[in-house]
């Protein structure tokens, strides 16, 4: 048994069937927003990138935008550009079209301005909506599923309840042939040796260890003595004694299977299994990178409570404690606080597997119901 998904021409499988309308540069955001207002069935997505950045950021933004377009949850894509920007709409469209899905693009400076472009964009979008509406869900194997893991607004119970529960679910999915992406390099501090030992080969192990150690150095250079705050007085009040203990509580989300690959922000993995992506710890940047890598779902643990979702992915919120689950019930999908009340990690993970199965088959997560659509593309350098 697998799940009912939308089979794509490139062999991938979507758990949603969105028409994505996205700008290649922030100058085209107005047109994208107009299309989104007139055709509410599309996911109209804007961002702040596309021009005025150095080569490293142009690379990251291009890779991320193409990855978002290629995401299996996107059934059809419309890219809107301005014309004079670094990241051009036709280039993004051409890269995504390689997947075989319907892809259109428009350039505002060539179409005679924003009103004309928006009018034509509305017509194109309506056609794409009709196209994807005709597609049906079909049975797909679990090995087509890739899950992004995330934690945000963590509390002292994150590493005791929610993260171990998600880790057990990650192990289950990898056992079924699927993939999980563990991100947030910041939160791996102190675990270079541990994670390197868990790599599937010496080469991958060295990559893991280099990634974490170079990140630790960078944080130290940037923050100096403040780097010690990576383990804060609040963390210590919560019973965490060392940075390594704190990080272990984060990375337990990834489960216990071997690490098969280490990838850059927003890059597409070439392997199945447990994959590490280099992202900042900031939730929105991290989720955007995971979506660009092709994850169809994100499982997100939280102790303080955060409502964020992602435009094209269901985001499943796992609360670390009952108080949060009840106080922000509109935003929370599962109460892992049951572990504190005597339920085993395995039992609560079983509930999460059932919830995950319902969500990939079409049940909306709370963040989807709330239309908590947020996206930010990570940058490394200054703007010019």
């Amino acid at each position, binding site marked *: 048994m697998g799940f009912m998904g939308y089979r794509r021409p490139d062999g991938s499988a979507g758990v949603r069937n969105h028409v994505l309308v996205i700008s290649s540069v922030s100058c085209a955001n107005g047109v994208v927003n107009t299309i989104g207002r007139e055709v509410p069935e599309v996911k109209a997505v804007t961002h702040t990138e596309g021009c005025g950045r150095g080569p490293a950021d142009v690379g990251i933004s291009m890779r991320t935008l193409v990855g978002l377009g290629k995401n299996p949850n996107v059934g059809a894509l419309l890219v809107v550009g301005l014309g004079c920007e670094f990241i051009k709409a036709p280039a993004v469209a051409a890269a995504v079209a390689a997947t075989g899905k319907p892809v259109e693009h428009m350039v505002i400076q060539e179409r005679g301005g924003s009103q004309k472009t928006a009018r034509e964009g509305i017509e194109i979008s309506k056609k794409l909506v009709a196209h994807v509406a005709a597609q049906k869900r079909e049975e797909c194997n679990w090995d087509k599923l890739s899950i992004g893991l995330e934690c945000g607004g963590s509390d002292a119970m994150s590493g005791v309840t929610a993260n171990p529960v998600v880790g057990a679910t990650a192990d289950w999915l990898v056992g079924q042939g699927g993939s999980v992406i563990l991100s947030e390099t910041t939160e791996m501090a102190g675990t270079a040796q541990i994670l390197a030992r868990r790599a599937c080969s010496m080469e991958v192990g060295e990559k893991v260890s280099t990634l974490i150690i170079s990140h630790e150095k960078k944080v130290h250079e940037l923050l100096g003595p403040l780097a010690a705050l990576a383990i804060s007085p609040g963390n210590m009040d919560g*019973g965490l004694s060392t940075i390594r203990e704190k990080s272990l509580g984060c990375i337990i989300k990834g489960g216990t299977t071997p690490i098969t690959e280490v990838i850059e922000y927003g890059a597409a993995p070439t392997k199945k299994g447990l994959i590490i992506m280099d992202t900042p710890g900031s939730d929105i940047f991290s989720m955007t990178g995971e979506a660009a890598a092709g994850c169809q779902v994100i499982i997100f643990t939280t102790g303080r409570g955060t409502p964020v979702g992602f435009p094209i992915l269901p985001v499943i919120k796992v609360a670390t404690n009952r108080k949060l689950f009840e106080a922000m019930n509109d935003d929370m999908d599962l109460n892992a606080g049951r572990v504190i009340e005597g339920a085993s990690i395995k039992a609560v993970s079983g509930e999460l597997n059932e919830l995950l199965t319902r969500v990939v088959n079409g049940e909306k997560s709370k963040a989807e119901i709330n239309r908590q659509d947020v996206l930010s593309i990570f940058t490394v350098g200054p703007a010019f």
Partner: protein
Amino acid sequence: MENNVIVIHPRDNVAVAIKAIKAGDRIVGVEGLDIVADADIPPSHKVAIIAIPKGKPVIKYGEFIGNAKEAIRPGDWVHTHNINTEEG
């Protein structure tokens, strides 16, 4: 009596309090273990479930998280006062 600790990984030598534990309370949640807490242990803090000699690793999540600064007895609260936070 309800469990007041959980052990995250079978290799761990510490358990995690899932509720506030008072000094003298029995530690409940580890099979075959009959010990009492030596101090008040707040929720999410650690308690030793087996003796950890001075200089030996404290294990949580099945992994090394620090060394015992002093001999730690079962039932001891385990935190920065008796774990070396230096990476080793």
